């Protein structure tokens, strides 16, 4: 591997089989599916760039979040983002942006952030639903695999001792200090809690809120959508959770970069993670 020649010699260390093949396949499948879901979701949002709380959008209350545009005085259109009534000018990114050919785009999210890039609501919906099936089936397979292979209990569930050491772990994270030796074989406690909350809170919630937007699925058990506060609340929750997942991805990639980038990439591709046992 090319990396070996440009990385300082690491005399004592060995490769540890960290990620099984099913986990690696499901990890990357999940990454592709979530990326498409996020970007096609932003496209779908562009069809009506406002969020509400409650059953309907027209209840007499204004939207709680809105991305819009208005004509500027002596300038081009101005992008406006309104959060709980407070206005922010977001020209260039939100509300008003440019297509790759320089044309003005007055959709909420810019074309570089959406799938497809050019506006087509039906096509964005097709992308979204197709990858939603891949994402859900992949997720179900992952949860079943994690239960039966004991991946969940062995690798993801923190012990009570680890939970008590959460303070130390927070300090280590703040100092960007990462475990080495045998400790690096395991996920640390914050990592475990982050993964568990994504797998068992955020992802199920984003799915449930997605289902709650389907009028047909609403009818299966009339009124079930009320547990999320109504259909428009569900749409708002779907949007917020999607961005929380994006935030998770950003932190996840950041941690990967600062804690042994090539090692992590290799371990999620080949399964093998290098454990350094000292200089």
């Amino acid at each position, binding site marked *: 591997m090319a990396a070996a020649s440009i990385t300082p010699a690491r005399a004592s260390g060995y490769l540890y089989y960290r990620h099984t093949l099913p986990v690696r396949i499901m990890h990357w499948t999940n990454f592709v599916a979530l990326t498409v879901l996020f970007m096609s979701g932003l496209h779908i949002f562009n069809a009506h760039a406002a969020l509400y709380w409650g059953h309907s959008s027209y209840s007499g209350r204004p939207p709680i979040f809105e991305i819009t545009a208005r004509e500027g005085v002596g300038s081009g259109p101005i992008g406006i983002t309104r959060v709980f009534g407070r206005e922010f000018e977001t020209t260039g990114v939100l509300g008003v942006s440019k297509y790759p050919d320089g044309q003005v785009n007055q959709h909420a999210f810019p074309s570089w952030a959406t799938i497809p890039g050019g506006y087509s609501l039906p*096509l964005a919906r097709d992308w979204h639903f197709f990858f939603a099936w891949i994402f859900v089936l992949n997720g179900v397979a992952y949860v079943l695999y994690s239960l039966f292979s004991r991946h969940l209990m062995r690798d993801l569930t923190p012990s009570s001792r680890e939970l008590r050491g959460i303070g130390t772990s927070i300090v280590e994270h703040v100092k960007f200090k990462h475990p080495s030796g045998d400790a690096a074989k395991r996920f640390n406690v914050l990592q475990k809690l982050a993964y568990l909350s994504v797998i068992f809170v955020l992802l199920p919630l984003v799915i449930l809120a997605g289902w709650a937007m389907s009028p047909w699925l609403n009818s299966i058990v009339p009124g079930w959508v009320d547990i999320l506060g109504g259909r428009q609340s569900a749409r708002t929750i779907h949007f917020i959770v999607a961005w929380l997942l994006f935030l998770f991805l950003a932190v996840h990639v950041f941690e990967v970069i600062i804690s042994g980038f*090539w090692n992590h990439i290799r371990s999620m591709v080949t399964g093998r993670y290098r454990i350094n046992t000292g200089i």
Partner: protein
Amino acid sequence: MTPGDISKRRFLVGAGGVGALLLSGCDRLSETEWFPKVLRTGNTLNRGLHRLLGSRSMAQEFTEAHLSPFFRSNGTSMPEGEEYLALAKGGFANWQLEVGGLVGRPVKLALAELRAMPRRTQITRHDCVEGWSAIGKWTGVPLSSILALVQPQQKARYAVFYCADAMSGGLTPEYYYESIDMDDAMHPQTMLAFGLNGKDLPIENGAPLRLRVERQLGYKHAKYVTRIELVESFAHIGGGKGGYWEDYGYQWYAGI
């Protein structure tokens, strides 16, 4: 900066480049003939699963307290043409609904005749494909009652709704139309509504008669309905996709 950092940076820049390529790849895939068809299978699965879970399920009904202060009008808010204008001026007294196609007994029904039939009122949420919802109180005749009157033939599979509003000003105007299957047509909440929020259906919401098909998105709820035809297939109608928006790529099954 160590050599490792440089290779890491190169990798990230490379990954960014690959990402950008993949995205333009997504757009290129969208433009092919075959890939959108693959994507559409997702919605076909949705329909299959939804039917399996709730073929006879009922849409949630609300109370007066939930009513939207105004019911948003989308698409056509005033059909063009002298004929519609004249009918509207006369309070739709001369308007008729024509029901035919694969039926034993085609009929023409005046608005007064429809109003005289057993009616149903329901407060439901209208969900637009764009993402917004509004809640309205609809009064009308269940479509199943009208179908009972005309006696559908065995081979009838879809009800097609023809509307009075022309959508585009081409040489030959394209009129709005929609279609639903017989399961939806016979559903107790599927109705032809002539009233909204206790008043006559306003013109902007589809006067004198519009379809309510509560478990599907707004574009299925054809407004300004003038004719219903029962058919075995809609391949020969309009662009062949079963509806005005469907002909422009929208999903025929709009339960999600």
